[in-house]
């Protein structure tokens, strides 16, 4: 074992949250090392010439190395678990910057009622509406407490959007349901798409409030916290699953990591795979063990360990770090580790084809499309509906690339052969004629909530292992009737909007697709090391510190008790800011211990 000199903080990976921590901690004079399994990558030159769908989207160039370490899944404990052998439902990242490089950068703050979730719902509807077997709970932090951190992050990196609620005043053109903001978005929203406008017109006619989605992509030139000016979006259409070639899409590479490196107190070690968090007799972490690119084992001692490798990696690493002090893994003394695994509904309730029109769907990105929030969270009355939870609807017609999108185009009546299952065959002359309409269809996509249940969880797989022979993380997860009803209700609203849009052909999916790991379903996997008010309901406190090992700090969406129907990173990063502020104010590094609330 090669032992390195001790540092103040060692992080798992060099992704979004690790980058933020490195910037703030080194600014205070502390030393930080990140142990990153992937390679180095920078806007220049790595993203300058990457407009290649096959390499980046179809072959997952920037993603986690599942050939070495994947995840197994089963719908419930009566079914066998099998490994995800090729990419499907989610696409975690690798390399410097993590998933926060190839992300879409749609940037929602969660709604205030997403935080006091359980008490809010019980108060408004009583206990009866909560689904059987649910394990939802309140977050130990609320929207108001996180608000300054959302705002700080937005200003630090630059963000585009139309303000909907400024200090309680509802403003025209934005999301009227968002929590009150203390200041407007730093930049105006991104340019809209034709498809988004078409969707917005129909939604508005039905009494809803469409708006362009908020985004961490710059709509105009902006000088971020690093003092370097960055260019606005050029709508090239190679966005999600790509690094941005003009630096308009914010990531840890655009400000935080370069600033940390500039201090000389930060080091990133690439191609180093973290295997374990060793602890001392009292159960406190002593650093990180990893496999180096030299094929040897290394030990990086540190006073504090940031578990910042994205949801599944974080939960698994805590589980694998067994010792006398933590026989079942760090944070698992009370069986809390792995609880409340959630995912998200990301499906297309309806797709319309508009013959004779072209929507330029290959331009822009996801956030250039209009969305409605009228059926998100608890902004609508759920009384008598038989479910909790909600979701947003948006016109999914930006950054369309051909290989992955020529299948599923709606067929007109009698247009081509059908499979034994009654689906149109995606080949033959009819298929060829159909894909001439490739730029003429608009899906309405639903991104919706995933409440937490006792039976949906992470643990270690008894059969399958990684390249080092250590157990893979097993995901046990399925939808319940609550989500089936939620989906059906919101899908009906989507279909009504599509009625108004008057397509020439359409496909409706009124029922939720059974959960599977094949169809992409968002990389918003959450829970497993959730934060809570005390050790009996959680793995960490409100700052992500593991209850029995407070110098082990978990970051990211593993902390979320349940999963609101919106992209997570604004909240992920606001929580990181929140923890770093508490560390600063409470002089945590003088004697790393539990932060006070």
């Amino acid at each position, binding site marked *: 074992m090669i032992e390195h000199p001790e540092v103040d903080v060692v992080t798992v990976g060099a992704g979004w949250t690790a980058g933020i921590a490195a910037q703030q901690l080194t600014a205070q004079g502390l030393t930080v090392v990140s142990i990153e399994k992937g390679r*180095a990558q*920078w*806007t*220049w*030159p790595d993203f*300058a*010439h990457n*407009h*290649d*769908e*096959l390499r980046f989207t*179809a072959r*997952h160039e920037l993603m986690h*190395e599942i*050939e070495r370490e994947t995840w197994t*899944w089963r719908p419930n404990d009566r*079914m*066998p678990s*099998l*490994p*995800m*052998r*090729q990419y*499907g439902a989610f696409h975690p990242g690798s390399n410097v910057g993590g998933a926060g490089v190839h992300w879409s950068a749609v940037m929602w703050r969660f709604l205030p009622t997403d935080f006091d979730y359980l008490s809010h719902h019980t108060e408004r509807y009583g206990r009866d509406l909560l689904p059987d077997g649910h394990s939802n709970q309140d977050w130990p932090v609320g929207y108001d407490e996180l608000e300054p951190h959302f705002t700080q992050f937005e200003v630090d990196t630059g963000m585009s959007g139309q303000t909907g609620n400024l200090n309680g005043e509802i403003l025209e053109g934005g999301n009227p349901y968002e929590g009150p903001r203390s200041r407007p978005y730093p930049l105006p929203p991104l*340019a*809209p798409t*034709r498809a988004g406008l078409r969707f917005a017109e129909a939604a508005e006619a039905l009494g809803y409030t469409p708006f362009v989605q908020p985004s961490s992509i710059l709509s105009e030139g902006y000088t971020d916290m690093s003092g370097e000016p*960055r*260019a606005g979006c050029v*709508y*090239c259409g190679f966005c999600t699953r790509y690094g941005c070639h*003009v*630096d308009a899409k914010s990531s840890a590479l655009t400000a935080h*990591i*370069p600033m940390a490196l500039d201090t000389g107190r930060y080091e990133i070690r*690439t*191609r180093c795979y973290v295997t374990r968090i060793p602890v001392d007799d009292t159960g406190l972490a002593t650093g990180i063990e990893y496999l180096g690119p030299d094929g040897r084992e290394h030990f990086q001692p540190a006073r504090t360990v940031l578990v910042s490798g994205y949801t599944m990696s974080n939960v698994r690493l805590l589980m694998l770090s067994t010792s006398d002090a933590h026989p079942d893994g760090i944070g698992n003394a009370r069986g809390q580790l792995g609880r409340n695994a959630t995912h998200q509904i990301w499906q297309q309730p309806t797709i319309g084809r508009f013959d004779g029109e*072209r929507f330029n769907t*290959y331009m*822009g990105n996801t956030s250039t499309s209009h969305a409605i929030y009228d059926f998100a969270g608890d902004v609508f009355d759920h009384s008598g509906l038989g479910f909790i939870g909600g979701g947003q609807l948006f016109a999914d017609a930006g950054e369309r*690339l*051909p*290989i992955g999108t*020529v299948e599923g185009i709606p067929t007109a009546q009698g247009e081509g052969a059908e*499979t*034994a299952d009654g689906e149109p*065959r995606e*080949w*033959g002359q009819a*298929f*060829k004629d159909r*894909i*001439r309409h*490739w*730029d003429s269809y608009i899906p309405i996509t639903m991104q919706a909530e995933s409440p937490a249940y006792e039976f949906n969880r992470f643990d270690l797989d008894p059969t399958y*292992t990684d390249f080092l022979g250590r157990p893979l993380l097993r995901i046990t997860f399925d939808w319940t009737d609550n989500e089936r009803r939620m989906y059906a209700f919101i899908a009906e609203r989507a279909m009504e909007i599509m009625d108004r849009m008057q397509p020439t052909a359409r496909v409706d999916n009124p029922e939720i697709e059974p*959960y*599977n*790991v*094949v169809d992409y379903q968002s990389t918003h996997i959450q829970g497993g090391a959730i934060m809570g008010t005390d050790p009996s309901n959680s793995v960490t406190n409100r700052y992500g510190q593991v209850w029995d090992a407070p110098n082990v700090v978990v970051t990211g969406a593993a902390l979320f008790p349940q999963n609101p129907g919106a992209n997570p990173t604004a909240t992920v990063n606001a929580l990181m800011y929140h923890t770093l502020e508490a560390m600063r104010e409470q002089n945590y590094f003088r004697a790393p211990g539990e932060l006070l609330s």
Partner: protein
Amino acid sequence: MTGTLATAAVVPGCTTDRATVPGPQEGPSAVPQPGVQVPEATGAATRFLNPDQYELLEAMAARLIPGDEDDPGAVQAGVVDYIDRLLATHEGYPQRTYTMGPFARGYEGDEEPPAEPGIVWVPADELDRYGWQAGQTPRELYRMGLARFQELVAARHGGASFVELSEDEQDALIEAIEDDEDDDVGEIFDPIPAGTFFELVHKHVVEGFLADPMYGGNRDMIGWRLIGFPGAQRAYSPEEMVDPDFSRPPQSLAMLPMLHGAHRGDTTALGSVRRRHPNGPID
């Protein structure tokens, strides 16, 4: 600049003659664009497929995305050359794939079959939810799949080969492996599911039709022209985003100008684009 691009895009390797197989096409008819260089129809040596496999796969591709000189399809786009190149590398795994066993096998009915080493039994109708579970490499699947497909053709058509059949007969056979419901299909293909083989071929044909031409398919950007995709572009304006009449001729990655006119490694012409960080990690 175009000169270098042309060399980069040509399928290398012309040592032997794929004698028994005619050249994939007599030249695509789509009008070549100035500055567009595409791999030529060379009849070049294949890297993985033997002549019979090449011929069969090309005949299948011709049904999956039909075409002729006036309205080119998969064959004119060179998708079989794309597949041949793909199979020449990494056991034919073009994408990240976890390959450790045990492997799943579907069963019908309520009773789970007795345990067997190396097999995980899964109810057949649930298997789809788990995604790719094949225990064979793509190379093995192509070798076995093509041979078994030809066996199926021969069994159903008195020893004929696929290329001799009518288009309707060919379509019916492809439908049979896509649906994978008939007894003879299951028996002939066992142990590889015919549907898995079909999906693999289908997926690769679509890729070869629509991926950047540098991978050997999408010759002359035939696929992109068909669907109206401009390919690799640096930028569109907010006005263009909402222009109902917008169109731009397609451009491959090799035609995409270097950023800010800079050459690789020249970091002086970057404008606002961040430099590689001097203290950055070595890699």
